[in-house]
């Protein structure tokens, strides 16, 4: 009973103390409770200072871009997962997938021909060497 009382008291103290601690989003660099361009500017300044520091570089660029992302009306948090290369989905040609061995055009404003040797995998043969038989075997 005594132990339970101590436990309740401890929990109560922690709750009372933590209620007074202001909580800020990581992107809220200037701690003014809102994420805006001021935070983006300060993030970039931190980024300038950390650009040659491997330990903080990644987190600082992610924080900068996330802040700008929020200021540009989106709430998605940008965070590059370990091992993933790019933040831009348009640059995902390095992912393994099956592709036609024929060259083709991607219609993205400017036509870009993707030569077949850039792909690692080939699985589709576009033209057969000999045409299929027109009739089934006679019995």
């Amino acid at each position, binding site marked *: 009973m005594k132990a339970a009382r101590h436990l309740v008291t401890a929990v109560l103290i922690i709750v009372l103390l933590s209620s007074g601690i202001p909580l800020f*989003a990581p992107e*809220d*660099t*200037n*701690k*003014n*409770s*809102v*994420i*805006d*361009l*001021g935070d*983006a*500017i*300060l993030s*970039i*300044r931190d*980024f*300038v*200072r950390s*650009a*040659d520091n*491997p330990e903080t*570089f*990644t987190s600082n*660029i992610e924080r*900068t*871009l996330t802040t*700008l*992302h*929020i*200021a*540009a*009306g*989106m*709430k998605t948090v*940008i965070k*590059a997962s*370990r*091992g993933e*290369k*790019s*933040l*831009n989905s*348009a*640059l995902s040609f390095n992912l393994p997938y099956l592709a036609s061995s024929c060259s083709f055009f991607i219609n993205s*404003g*400017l036509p870009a021909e993707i030569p077949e040797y850039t792909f690692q995998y080939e699985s589709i043969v576009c033209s057969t060497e000999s045409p299929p038989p027109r009739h089934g075997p006679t019995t």
Partner: protein
Amino acid sequence: MKNLRKFFILFLLLFLGILAFAPNALAAKELVVVDTNSCQDCTAVVPITLTGGFNDVNGIAFTLTYDSSKFDFVGLAQATTAIDDGSTYDSEDEETWPLPAEVESTIYYQANVNDVAASDIDEILIAAAGANFFASDTSDVTPFRVEFHVKAATALDTYAIGVQQTIIGPDTASSAGYDEDTLIPVATGLAPTADPLTETQTFAVTLTDGSITVSAALKGDVSGDGEITSQDAVDAFYLSFTPWDELTADQQFRADYNGDGQLTAQDAVDIFYAQF
């Protein structure tokens, strides 16, 4: 009495001087979407120009509106200052990391397309910021250009590219710390040496819409005779000595062959080779 007359004349001169120079001194900040020309199935390059002194601003946020049945948003292109959306860096490869000096002189940005339901008018929400001010003095500055692809079926006409203040919300307001939909300031400034906890300064900015005129003009056909010849290359070369702002929109479109918003000898060379 004589002294009084001198004082009156001096006062009059001072008053006239204030009238003459006040408009420049009190020039309001303005974000201008510059009118531009393009052809069907071409890339239209729309400069975003900041006037009225952005030498105390290092962050801007605004929303462009455009007719998505006529244009596709391609992206932002560099003008005078380096820009970066962070898409090329690899967190695992230090070789791809920029140097501190590069970071300091780069404008970082995000541009998000908001596909407005039940409407052809879509929005592009843009936020950009840098460590330094956008300009070193009060002269006009173009931080970047917005590229649109003009769809092949777009009729020859002039189409508005609107600009308005960005509204945070409705579903994003809480994640940004706001209780309700909020108009965010277009321009924000913070001195490079200011304390991190210093309040940032926001500025009122006049927003001016622009347009894209889709015409049948042929890029590279400077003379306007309907075909690209060596003469067009020569004309473009001579026009390259004329300041960009003094060229007509039609000349800018026809002679700026590579569409980088500048007319240089390279455009003349490109036009020369284009005739073959």
